[in-house]
């Protein structure tokens, strides 16, 4: 589903910085992949390119057989809306809106008719166990609840891939574990999950870990999966 070959990204703001220096890998549908690396390694840049939030400056990226080079900004936005879901470290909820309205946001930019939206929002919120908070103001929720709302928002358009950028970074260990278990269960139901993290314990929820350092892929290894009962997140 995702194919990356010799991917490069150069920033030319003040001088030239090569964030990615030729990365090659592929991800199949239904995989749970962690991208690990220290700060400044290029892992977030890679996630941004994979999720169509940014474009590479070299190499090729193909999503479902279509190169990002061939797609206009409008087409990229459409793919992000329809096929991709996003979970951010800082949740990015609109705190003045309630849970319902936050989860509904991606639907506003989709082709889904207004009459069908309510059911989809309720279903997504229920899937993260927050149906009793449906009309609570997002700003008044706990960190763990906020991230679960963000996951519901990522799920509401029923995307194939979920990109999670340090999803446990702002959470306590208990909430982090809950969030990772939700992501793992989504993967078990067939969704592809691509996770960026610098925490080994979080990364080990995946079936495969790609390690990046200084813009170069260090390793790409499959790991044994034993998620149930894991309570060892920091």
């Amino acid at each position, binding site marked *: 589903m995702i194919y990356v070959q010799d991917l490069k990204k150069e920033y030319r703001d003040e001088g030239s910085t090569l964030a990615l220096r030729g990365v090659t890998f592929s991800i199949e549908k239904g995989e749970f992949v962690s991208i690990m690396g220290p700060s400044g390694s290029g892992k977030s840049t890679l996630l941004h390119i994979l999720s169509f939030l940014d474009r590479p400056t070299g190499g090729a990226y193909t999503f479902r057989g279509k190169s990002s080079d061939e797609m206009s900004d409008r087409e990229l936005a459409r793919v992000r809306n329809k096929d991709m879901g996003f979970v951010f470290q800082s949740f990015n909820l609109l705190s003045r*809106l309630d849970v319902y309205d936050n989860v509904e946001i991606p639907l*506003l930019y989709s082709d889904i008719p207004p009459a069908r939206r309510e059911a989809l929002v309720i279903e997504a919120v229920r899937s993260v166990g927050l149906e009793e908070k449906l009309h609570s103001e997002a700003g008044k929720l706990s960190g763990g609840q906020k991230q679960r709302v963000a996951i519901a928002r990522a799920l509401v358009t029923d995307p194939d891939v979920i990109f999670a950028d340090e999803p446990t970074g702002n959470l306590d260990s208990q909430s982090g574990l809950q969030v990772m278990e939700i992501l793992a269960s989504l993967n078990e139901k067939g969704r592809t999950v691509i996770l960026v993290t610098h925490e080994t314990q979080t990364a080990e929820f995946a079936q495969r870990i790609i390690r990046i350092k200084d813009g170069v892929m260090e390793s790409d290894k499959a790991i044994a999966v034993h998620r149930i009962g894991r309570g060892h997140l920091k």
Partner: protein
Amino acid sequence: MLFRDAFKTATRSLSHGKLRSILTMLGIVIGISSVIVLMSIGQSAQELILGQVQSIGSNLVIVIPGAPPRDRGFSPPASAQGIVITSLGERDVDALSREPSILAAAPLVSGQAEAVYGDNNKTVSYQGITALMFAVRNFTVGKGLAFTKGDVDSANHVAVIGPDLAAALFGPYVDPINKIIRLKDISFRVVGVLAKGGTGAFGVDQGTIALIPMTVAQKQFLGVSYFSTIFVKGDPAYDIDFVKSRMTSVLRQDHGITDPNKDDFTIRTQADVLSILGNITSILTLFLAAIASISLVVGGIGIMNIMLVAVTERTREIGLRKAVGATDGDILQQFLIESVLLTFAGGVTGIAAGAAIVGLIYFTLTTFFPSIGWVFAFPLRAVVLGLGVSGLAGIIFGIYPARQAGKKNPIDALRYE
């Protein structure tokens, strides 16, 4: 994104900062209400002036010396330009009086003089007229009497004065009738005071005039034998244009003019004057509206400023919306709807405030100054203009911030602290 959703999102954003939205709107409210009030006052003044001039009667025509202007526009009469033209005389008045389509013709000379009574004085416009002029110009003498043909023939020093002049010279407690005033150091006995009526024929204010016998004005004030104007009252049975054409023929014959391009007189009807006055007041109204619209521009800049602040404050929101599928156009649309909603709501409020102020002005003037005869005018075009301009201001002043929002890079926007 459906327009309905964009509208809902925009209204929700605005309602979350109610006080800020109201304060932002205030500039537009003041701008639109100023335009409404000034346009309304302009139209009221126009209707008042034209109404008063029309009340004199549409069959009044004047003849002034000098050639008519070559273009169709208005130019000041030769006398006002300091040119003395002596082409109108007694013979013309007689000839016009004999014309069957004319009921009466009355000449006039005029000038400025200082009117003095006791310690009070006021610079006035005096008019030397014949007794017939009272009928020709529908002068109503409110107190006392008009002077007579005998007074004119005998060059008696009598005067009929305007009500404002009477008030200025005599105050509220002294009866002006039979009092002696001085004009150009010549004593005149006040025999009558004109009724309050505001503007007289051809837009001349009759409140401060002093009417004196023609013979006195010509011989003792000016030392001339010609007239500066002849007022003619046409027979209502005839069309006014026919009367005008007959007058032209009579005067050309009288003056021995064969080439129409060499006329040494100008004939103006009330319609001509109404048209000129209408043009002047319209220009004045537009001028007032243009001044008021400056506040609209200031209000618009306020909207732009606040929208730019809102775009910066909501950078992360923009980043999120773009990440989950919003296009540049979706974001632009949302912010543009917000700015148009702000200005449009400001416009509607401004129209309501303007209407209230116009109503208050009308109430005040008709209650406390009924003699002005103020008329209520609330021009619908001002309402349409107000709504149109406010909507347009939202687009003009909102497009830049909205474009800034739409162009934001989602990654930078999501990282914004």
